[in-house]
């Protein structure tokens, strides 16, 4: 008897592997802005993976732009990572700004009122003004 074919999604679920593990990339932009691009799921596993590097960047930068456009999910521990980083940047006299979160991720951020302590913007052309440059 021929065994039924499993979908890729089902196979991934069976072996407990998420399709997009968390990833972090850094780039220096104009006006002294450090851009951190996150991609994947900012869940418990994702937050633990990037915590150290994210905070190290946040501590040494004064203008931190966090691109969330490729983040597909965020949990409270992911928010904790963002808040801890934003506090580190603020302690250094700086500011952290969140860029272009997907609608569901933005709903989590606004439900938790993250937007009251760090700006969320979808206008990448106006980043400098958000930082007050």
């Amino acid at each position: 008897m021929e065994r039924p074919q499993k979908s890729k999604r089902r196979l991934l679920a069976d072996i407990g592997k998420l399709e997009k593990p968390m990833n972090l990339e850094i780039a220096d932009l104009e006006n002294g802005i450090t851009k951190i691009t996150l991609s994947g799921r900012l869940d418990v596993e994702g937050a633990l993976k990037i915590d150290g590097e994210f905070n190290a960047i946040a501590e040494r930068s004064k203008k931190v732009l966090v691109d969330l456009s490729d983040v597909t999910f965020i949990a409270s521990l992911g928010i904790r990572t963002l808040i801890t980083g934003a506090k580190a940047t603020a302690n250094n006299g700086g500011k952290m700004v969140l860029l272009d979160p997907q609608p569901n991720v933005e709903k989590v951020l606004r439900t938790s009122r993250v937007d009251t302590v760090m700006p969320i913007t979808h206008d990448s052309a106006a980043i400098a003004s958000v930082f007050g440059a």
Partner: protein
Amino acid sequence: MPLSRRRSPHHWHRIFNGSILGISSAASWVESIASELDLPASQAFAMQVCLEELMSNIVRYGRSPSTPWPQIDSKNTLSISVTVTSLADRITMTIEDNGRPFDVAQAPGKVIDEPLCKVQPGGLGIHLIKSFADNLTYSRTKTGNRVIVEFTD
């Protein structure tokens, strides 16, 4: 082809280790069920939020070295049972664990309500669960806790 929600209820059930890997495995599994049911993205996302936060609470606080809960055996094995049921007008997700008692339905939620310099990171999960679930019920079981989360159409 997606399952028809108009048919008789469908059930999915699995048991996961009370660990970070267990949370990731459960998230993938529930995502595959949402895909199979062709749920709206917002509903699938809400299920993911509640699953992640509930399991995260169990893994982080379900066992405590200072006050071990007797239902966890000598190897300190924490396990989490997840059952997803698809009904005509809603999805229910039942999460049972053998950890220390914790009534998530009665626990107060927290949001960020202070300036950044005063905010203590963390503790936002319960508010997220209550915000993304349409209904949340808790009961004690002989071996631990049962939480039933509902997501209506």
